[in-house]
């Protein structure tokens, strides 16, 4: 019998089975706050005593280490795999440890390969929650996550724009068709505290978890976990979004 198969798929699946909830943070459009929100949620959940991991899956443009203020000079420790360093209570893994922040130009196949490799060798151990900071859109990265993890619970991030709303409708249809149930939706950088699209979300079967205002001070807190945790956005995430994840973990 001749085969040419990939043992990493088996390994990655087994490692991910040790994690109670996997939350990919997804958005149709770029720059809407996925990295900020996934990093802050990781910090908030760790602060509550949960065992939390954060994985930067924006393979070609990782930035979560910048939000966490995590250095990428030292490679993760080797111990029957690679052990993610702990940043402010969060087990943090990123391709940036290996690409040294140089531009990493990859086509889809390379992206899938890199994700598979990372998930096959990263030793998370038993976790309550693993947050995945995703690149914008739904493509290779999300497909790979759907291939390797049993029932991810995506958290959608959007803005109060009509175009974003249309894309959210598409994304939630694609996820629904694949049998994936969405954790909920966050409107970020909101102009008004009341979502203009409340009814539309209801029609789409999406629960709007929080409306986060644009908070000018947040930019200065980037790279400083302590300051991020003291922001107004953190307050809302703590009250409105974290409990939903804790409920699943």
């Amino acid at each position: 019998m001749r085969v040419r198969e990939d043992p990493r798929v088996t390994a990655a699946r087994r490692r991910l089975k040790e994690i109670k909830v996997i939350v990919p943070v997804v958005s149709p459009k770029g720059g809407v706050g996925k990295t900020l929100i996934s990093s802050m949620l990781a910090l908030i959940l760790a602060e509550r005593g949960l065992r939390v991991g954060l994985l930067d899956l924006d393979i070609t443009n990782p930035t979560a280490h910048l939000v966490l203020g995590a250095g990428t000079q030292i490679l993760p420790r080797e111990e029957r795999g690679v052990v993610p360093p702990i940043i402010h209570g969060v087990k943090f893994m990123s391709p940036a440890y290996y690409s040294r922040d140089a531009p990493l130009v990859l086509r889809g196949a390379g992206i899938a390969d890199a994700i598979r490799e990372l998930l096959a060798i990263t030793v998370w151990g038993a976790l309550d929650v693993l947050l995945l900071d995703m690149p914008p859109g739904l493509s290779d990265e999300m497909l790979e996550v759907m291939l390797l993890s049993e029932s991810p619970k995506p958290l959608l991030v959007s803005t109060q724009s009509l175009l974003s709303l249309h894309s959210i409708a598409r994304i939630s249809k694609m996820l629904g068709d694949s049998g994936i149930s969405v954790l909920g939706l966050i409107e970020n950088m909101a102009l008004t505290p009341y979502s203009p699209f409340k009814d539309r979300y209801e029609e789409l079967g999406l629960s709007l978890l929080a409306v986060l205002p644009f908070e000018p001070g947040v930019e200065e807190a980037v790279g400083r976990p302590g300051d991020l945790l003291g922001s107004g956005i953190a307050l809302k995430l703590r009250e409105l979004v974290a409990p939903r994840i804790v409920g699943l973990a």
Partner: protein
Amino acid sequence: MHEWALAEAVVEYLEEKRREEGWSNVKTLVLGLGELQNVDREVFEFALKHLLSQNEVKVGKIILHLVKASFKCRRCGGSWTLDDLNLDEDMREAIHFLPEAIYAFASCPHCGSRDYYVEEGRGLVIEELEVE
């Protein structure tokens, strides 16, 4: 060592196949070790044999062979090998863990493009599995 994680992956893969396909033992297992990933062959082999000794899956013969890495450029069609590149220790180490890191450090030696692919010898592959 990260070689252990790779060996574990192979053993888990065998366990899963055995469950799915219902065979009892492996007669011959042929593994290709891609030069790019630069797996420590001795450590890997030790880990694999150790893990198999504690496992129900019995493997008769294990053949490991090194697959030389070759690259091909999508832009100019040129090809090259690792010997043609200038990679320092740190880069080699990063690539050891994440072979795709090579795209951060090397471009096509013929035209400078980053749009190339690893033809062969990326990482660990199961090349052949003979069961009984």
